[in-house]
């Protein structure tokens, strides 16, 4: 699975959960850069990611995801387990 592929899929999840049509994610983006991505919406995003890739994150995985790049790293690591 390519990073770019994951980024595109994440873009779709974020757009739906945050209700933003023209969202363009990049790996450096964090909660500071994306309106409405906060602790309330984050868990919905996480559960959508888990559903799409069939993975399960531990709490410490979730806490360590500080930006989109971290999210992609974690998805890749979990998918290969």
């Amino acid at each position, binding site marked *: 699975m390519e990073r770019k592929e994951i980024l595109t899929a994440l873009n779709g999840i974020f757009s739906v959960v945050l*209700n933003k049509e023209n969202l363009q994610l990049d790996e450096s983006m964090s909660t500071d850069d994306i309106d*409405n991505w*906060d*602790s*309330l919406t984050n*868990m*919905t995003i*996480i*559960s959508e990611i*888990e559903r799409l890739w069939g993975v399960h*994150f531990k*709490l*410490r995985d*979730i*806490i360590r995801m500080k930006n989109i790049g971290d999210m992609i790293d974690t998805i890749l690591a979990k998918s290969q387990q």
Partner: protein
Amino acid sequence: MEFLSIPFVVMMFITFVLYYATDRRRYQHALLLMASCVFIGYYHWIYLLVAAAITVFTFLIGKRIHATVNTPRATRWLWLGIGGLVGFWLIARYWSPLFPLGISFYTFQAISYLIEIYWEEDPEDDFIDFSLYMLLFMKFLSGPIERAENLLPQLKKAHVFDYEQIVGGLKTVAWGCFLKLVIADRIGPALDIVLDNVHGATGMQLLVATLLYPIQLYADFAGYTCMALGLGRMLGFKLQPNFDRPFTATSTGELWRRWHMSLSFWVRDYIFMPLSASLRSWKRWGVYASLLITFVAIGVWHGAGWTFAVYGLFQGLVIIGETVLGNRREKLYAHLGRHAGKTLMIVRTYLLFALSLLFFRLTSVGDVFYTYAHLFDGMQTSAKELRLGLSDQEWIVVGIAAVLMFVLEWLHSRYRLGERSSRLSAPLRWTIYVVIVGVIFWYGAFGVENFIYIQF
């Protein structure tokens, strides 16, 4: 020992002089620890004993968690640590004749330290440094609730005399004194007369007190925090900020990211996140349930009684409402224009917060509902009743000071006033300093009670 007292000024002066007499880290830390013990023990030796015992307990449990990390034993050590800390806090809070000052704040620090080690961060090896993380005097009484990752690295080097930092720290302390003495303590006694006996107040008095109480509470707590941050900066430490212009928030959710931030972020990371992660299969209902539990926890942290629980519940329900109705905000902005829409939301957020704070301030839920029911009684009240016992001059002082507070905080957020003032010519700069100190001494209300948050 209170910040606004002669013994504290003397202690701080001696500590400051001796601290910069050398640049040896060990010497500085021993001195700071001694000063912190004097500061705590000056209130009551029991407070020092309790704080020291909790420090040793947390240090040892942290070591055990680290030694067994990623095994079931680490989980058992973590729960033993958290159970011990929370259990002791509950006993001290509700069943002890003496409530050790600052215990709520350093217990939170201890819990976050243990959880971070459980999450595979390294524990602190140096007991003196760890003791300072727990007991450092300027943040001991009411925070900010420091994280190990912020404070412990600052303890790994000696601090050398830095004129800019020290002057910057003094300015922050002066700003804290202005907020506390000229606004909070000037207006506080008048609001107390109304809020201590809501049944004896008129509708207009209740309305004025309800609307002004958030400003008193903010000036009091932000005043304390500025003093703590400024004193820390004078000794070379950068402590966590606690406020970020909360009354500019356009939603209650945003307000809680700007109000008592060190507590808000603590409960977000160590209560809300674990809860919402474990309930994420419930989708948005898991988030809502976690929100309610988290805010009720914030409420009851402030004290026993239904008022505090309802205070937390109020915040949680409003934030859930905002989340559900999130899309309507954009429609409102589109309809009214962005500036007018935002202004409306700022006013709405302030009013909701003011109403919720009655649960925080009054002693019974019944009194809060009585106040709600009578807020608009007898609108044709005389000016004398509206003064709440303050003179016209005092109202003018408080009014100007409160406007100045909002304007200067806005200017500072945009133009970094503290740094800019350093670039002014020396005569102008010193004139401003003298005027600020003069205003504090001339218009400050000295001899009023201690900080509101010291009771928590």
